[in-house]
């Protein structure tokens, strides 16, 4: 089946969106003092690193960051056709009483975020959890919303959103992919 790709954010668009999110996070939390960032594997990790870089550039202090792998918390493991790979969680600092920013690339059904919240609660009790995503494509299946959104992107269910990042793909962009009938 043929697919049609449409770019919805170019490199500059990604950069602007992340810069704005970084400013919004710092404004809402009044700096980086109590702030920690956790990226959801896999692309959330790179996006979290970009936000941490920007926060450091603005505030002069680098907030701690960690990685969360939600595989073991998924609600569809028993339905997966193949056991997914586990890459592990790395949170090298206590999250108790911190303001925690959970970072992911695309917010869709909300199930990944649900799993990530459950996983985080096993690591401690943050003072607050805020959700930052590059793209919110709608179609939530759970009562979850993002606090910081790079771009709201209305999509159809038969479309998919692909975030490409320099670190992996050689360039920054977000594309909407639609399968063409026939």
């Amino acid at each position, binding site marked *: 089946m043929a697919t049609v790709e449409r770019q919805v954010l170019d490199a500059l668009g990604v950069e602007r969106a992340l810069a704005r999110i970084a400013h919004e996070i710092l404004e809402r939390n009044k700096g980086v003092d109590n702030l920690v960032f956790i990226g959801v594997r896999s692309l959330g990790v790179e996006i979290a690193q970009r936000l941490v870089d920007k926060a450091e550039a603005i505030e002069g202090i680098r907030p701690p960051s960690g990685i969360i792998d939600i595989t*073991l918390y998924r609600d569809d*493991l028993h339905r997966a*056709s193949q*056991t997914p790979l586990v*890459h*592990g*969680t790395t949170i090298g600092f206590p999250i108790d009483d911190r303001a925690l920013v959970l970072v992911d690339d695309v917010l869709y059904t909300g199930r990944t975020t649900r799993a990530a919240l459950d*996983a985080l609660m096993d690591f401690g009790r943050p003072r607050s959890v805020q959700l930052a995503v590059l793209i919110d494509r709608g179609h939530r299946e759970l009562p979850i919303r993002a606090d910081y959104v790079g771009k709201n992107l209305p999509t159809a269910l038969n479309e998919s959103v692909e975030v490409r990042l320099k670190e992996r793909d050689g360039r920054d962009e977000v594309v909407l992919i639609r399968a063409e009938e026939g």
Partner: protein
Amino acid sequence: MFTRRHLLGLEGLSREEILSLIDTAGTFKEISDRDIKKVPTLRGKTVVGLFYEASTRTRTSFEIAAKRLSADYVNISAPTSSSSKGETLLDTARNISAMRPDALVIRHSASGAPHFLAKRIDCPVINAGDGAHEHPTQALLDLLTIRDKVGRLDDLTVAIVGDILHSRVTRSNVHALRTLGNRVRLVGPPTLLPAEAAAWGEVHHDLRSGVRDADVVMMLRLQRERQGRNYLPSLDEYSRYFCLNRAALALAKPDAVVMHPGPINRGVEIASDVADGAASLIMQQVTNGVAVRMAILFLLVNRVRAAAPDVPVAEHAAPERRRKVG
């Protein structure tokens, strides 16, 4: 990627399969370092341990692994089970299977017992040690421990020392170490070396030549419960020639590591100051055992429903044959 239905042994597994098991196990280590040592992954699943031989480490390790994945774990030990009333292994296993467990962990003194059951019951079977055949989770935790400490799993010289003849740990390790491209030495008195040892690697009857320049020295427990047939003149004599003490260890590479699957006989196969010394990885082995067993349970139990339709024909065919015979 490991996509088999059972873990019966390491013989015949590919390099990729072994490494993917170790990689997956590596990611589970972190869970045991948390304050809350539990993930919800196998919630609602039941793991049954069927232990026909004594075990402290392996049984506890499987139970902890299952519980840290939120599975329910039930253990049956032979002396307290109906086997003491004469029930056969197969009948016991079929009755347990009728209670719909999601995995069966078995240790048995008969080589091949797990393979026998895997063909006849519906759930994944994990070999926790069968006779003198294999002990795959032990070898996997050994490999994970070596990789953690040495940083690689190929081009190593590994000396396995002691009661090779009765050692299922050796057989699993030999298969895996060789598949990954390491040199294996088998070290022990001729009476405790099986005929096939020469096909596994270099055979040494002298501890000093056996451990010389080794990267890893893997000591085996002298299996006193299996020593009925005069394999040794005396325990004293065995320890005089084959006990790993500091002088013998000094012949290995300067940064060589010492391992032992436990339980250790202090002063018989390993001196206390070596077992408790800086080169010893014995406690890390035990810690890694939990991660390895979590990984195996995760990979096997989660696969079940998805894999059921395309289980190889051979694994379905066995019960049919059994009905005709029985």
